């Protein structure tokens, strides 16, 4: 519905960049804004997003960034958006219903639209150079949902400690994104933080806080952000209708890991549903499923891809018996996993 330049007037970006270069080369020429002033300015463009969730382990809130004065909000693609009603609450307490414009499943970003004019945007300047390790940054987010109404989102400070590709596959929360991220030395990625703004000390948006990621082996949570150029690409793709896949619709997909079924990462359009592992003590483990099993059917319905597995499980009701058919060493094996848990139930 919107064209791609709406939020990113090229002239503005160029001017900003020029200003940045001037400042960088000449050093501070006038009094720098205090961190408080920088935060106060940028936080006006950070919104609190409310949607689905509220059950154990899944928050019903996250963070979004107003990137255009007309009301485009960049946020992360998550279960919070699996709702008919998504609300955005601005820094001044104004509450807007939001519409899901689209999503980029690869980068796990989404764009929402709210009806407004002259909103206090935090512009998406795609050609801002990536920040280097050692750069001091500020994170603004709706962490833990502690800010409500006209209360300002939380501000944290930290340093970009590394600029590296995200490796979050084996034994981790699954993240389809394989691009570069900023690793941060501060605990930015808390419940509610995803979608938050990473800004530099001049108040420029340099990244977006990613979804929570935790290594199950070590229990370590990752604090990271997607660089702004990646965010801009996702934004452009989404508003241009080029985003590759439809958004997960309201509850039609079911995460097989809730049964203890840990599948290989969903990298392809039709990722074969190979089992990577089963969680100890889970229904999958009890049913005898093993790593490298290939799922071929869920309750008799063939599942050619990982997504098909999620959809087939999603088509069942909570409490329905789950029977998985797998190929193991050339043989067909049937495994009964017992009743399907509720979608939001923690494993």
């Amino acid at each position, binding site marked *: 519905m919107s064209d791609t330049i709406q939020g990113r007037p090229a002239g503005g970006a160029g001017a900003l960049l020029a200003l940045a270069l001037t*400042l*960088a*080369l000449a*050093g*501070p020429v006038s009094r*720098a804004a*205090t*961190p*408080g*002033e*920088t*935060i*106060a300015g940028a*936080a006006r463009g950070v919104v609190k997003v409310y949607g689905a969730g509220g059950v*154990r*382990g899944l928050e019903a809130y996250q963070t979004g960034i107003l990137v255009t004065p007309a009301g485009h909000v960049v946020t992360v693609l998550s279960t919070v958006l699996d709702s008919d009603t998504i609300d955005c609450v601005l820094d001044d*307490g104004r509450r807007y219903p939001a519409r899901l414009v689209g999503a980029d499943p690869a980068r796990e970003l989404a764009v929402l639209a709210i009806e407004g004019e002259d909103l206090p945007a935090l512009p998406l300047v795609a050609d801002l150079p990536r*920040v*280097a*390790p*050692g*750069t*001091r940054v*500020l994170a603004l987010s709706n*962490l*833990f949902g*502690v*800010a*409500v*109404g*006209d*209360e*300002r*989102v*939380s*501000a*944290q*400070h930290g340093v970009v400690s590394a600029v590296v590709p995200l490796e979050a596959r084996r034994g981790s929360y699954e993240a389809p994104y394989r691009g570069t991220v900023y690793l941060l030395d*501060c*605990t*930015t990625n*808390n*419940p509610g933080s995803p979608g938050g703004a990473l800004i*530099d*000390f001049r108040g420029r948006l340099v990244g977006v806080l990613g979804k929570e990621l935790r290594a199950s082996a070590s229990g370590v*949570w990752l604090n990271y952000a997607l660089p702004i150029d990646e965010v801009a690409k996702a934004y452009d793709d989404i508003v241009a209708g080029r985003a590759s896949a439809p958004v997960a619709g309201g509850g039609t997909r079911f995460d097989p890991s809730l049964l203890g079924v840990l599948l290989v990462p969903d990298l392809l359009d039709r990722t074969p549903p190979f089992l990577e592992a089963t969680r100890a003590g889970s229904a999958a483990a009890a049913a005898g499923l093993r790593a490298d099993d290939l799922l071929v059917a869920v309750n008799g319905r063939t599942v050619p891809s990982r997504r098909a597995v999620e959809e087939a499980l999603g088509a069942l009701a909570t409490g329905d018996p789950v029977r998985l058919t797998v190929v193991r060493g050339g043989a067909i094996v049937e495994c009964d996993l017992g009743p399907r848990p509720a979608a939001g139930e923690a494993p």
Partner: protein
Amino acid sequence: MQPATASRRRCDWRSARAVPWPALVAVVVATATASRPAAGAEAGTAPPDSVLAAERDRVAVMARASGAAVAIFAGDAGGGSGVLVSPDGYALTNFHVVQPAGVAMKCGLSDGRLYDAVLVGLDPTGDLALVKLVGRDDFPWAELADSDTVAVGDPCFAAGNPFLLATDFQPSVSAGIVSGVHRYQGPAGTILEYADCIQVDAAINPGNSGGALFDARGAVIGINGRASFEKRGRVNVGVGYAISSNQARHFLGALKGGRIVDHATLGATVATASDGRVVVSDILESSDAYRRGLRYDDEVVALAGRPVRTVNAFKNVLGTLPSGWRVPLVYRRGGQRHEILVRLAAVHAPAELEAIVSGEGGPRQRRRTPGSRRPQAPGDEPPPDEAPAAPAAREPPPLPDALRGLHEARPGFANFHFNLVERDRVAAAIAARHPVERPAGTWRVVGRLTDKEAFRIELAPARASIDLPTGTSAIDAAGELDANPAPPGSGGLLAALVLWRRLILDGPRSLGRTTYLGTVPAATAAGAEPAGTAIPVYDDVLDAAVGGVEARFIVAADGAVTGIDLWTAPDAEPCEVRFAYAADGGVGDAVGLPRSFTVRHADAAFGTFTIDEVVVEPATENADSTGPAATAGDGAGAER
């Protein structure tokens, strides 16, 4: 007694160049972004002098602040942190830190010494406690800043005893920025409510509880007590909460008085209306707010001088106020704006607080449920490596020698000894201000009302009378004072003046069961008691139950009695007397008496009395010339 007027011993470092912490950040950023990949040393350029100077300042500020940090060790019960707020050893900490410790504890300071400390006061709802270290009168201490001036992004640091690491008593310092202000964190399975608190990203871990959050110049802006941990285990995730120093200041007087203090309720709840207004959703007819005119569906606009735009803002203001304070409330009804003064009631029954303090039904029992989404108190559990044994029977161990005589148990008090200390301090100030020859006889006070008509008051040991244009009233000053709330319409002015005279001449001990209640913001000229933005001046409050009435005396630091509230029955509207003194002494200056006073009862002003002359007669052998029952001497009806 008050931070605002306390010794300026620390001026030297308070005024020391306070620059540079934000400046340091800015310069570092510029360096990092300007010359990547590697800046500074490798390129052979030394950091600018301004950076080095800022760093030195910061190190000095942290070193000073660390001197005031207290490492609290409560033996098997765990421990935590605290901060000294006066040179005579008073230290603030969390209720949840001292509650398991009992009356006596050991406190380490950064001088490497271990001091004995005694529990003084408790605020179970606000999670505050006051302890007193003994052994010195020159403890290093930190001033309480005005936390309402704290802004998001301000640099700050915590100094405390995380994980009880400070076995050498050297505090751990963690720096950060203020992440949020005016946060509300409601009770979560416990009664501990954090209203109007400061959120920080400085590392706050178990054991940091009770320690100070300092600003960049080393003044206390909060008491760290809580953090959001969620699913990441009980370690810092960059989201800590500190009780604001202004809230602590509201309760400090009552805590010094050894009390178990309670928080306040308006007797009304509020909710957000569909149009966003904050409206009264329920109100008790017995509440003072109702009696002052507040009704269901009225829009609450401001409370205690702060705007109320959300339900959280309302809870934030209310949650920082002690019960018994009288605060302005602004509400709107039908486009009409109303401003009333409301006396705040206690949230808990005294027995409830006692139960919480003794640990029966308190926070340790009503532990949050697993997976609670609320922040949790970092220090309320000992660190895992120092798990306590099962709590011993509550037979208090004998006090160490250093604390002998510093504790007295009494229901309703954490330590009644300190109530006597504060009561006697106020008594000494009153006596010093009023050089009346004792024993004294009749006091004659003559003057004019607002409309220039004359009044005459006579206060004799056994009889008090008042002549007003509307008539003459008299009461038996030596007997029950609740029988006759004279003059009519005043709610008991004569009784109040009788007790006023007795307080000045014979001190609080002459007024029966007299306790020290704490402090209230000093009344302004308009008679309101707003909690303003600047650090207010506080007056002390004494409470006396005598002769069938209850009276509260408001006493300024110089011993001047600035107000009396007197109830002739527990649920009656009080008679409220407010005294005004001339700046240069004035009419009653020879004996320290006021120039004028105003009297209010219920919603009405009873009168303003301007004093022309006060005559204090010496007591005579035979009689008091005006009283029929000629009882000479002092302290008629005094109780012990």
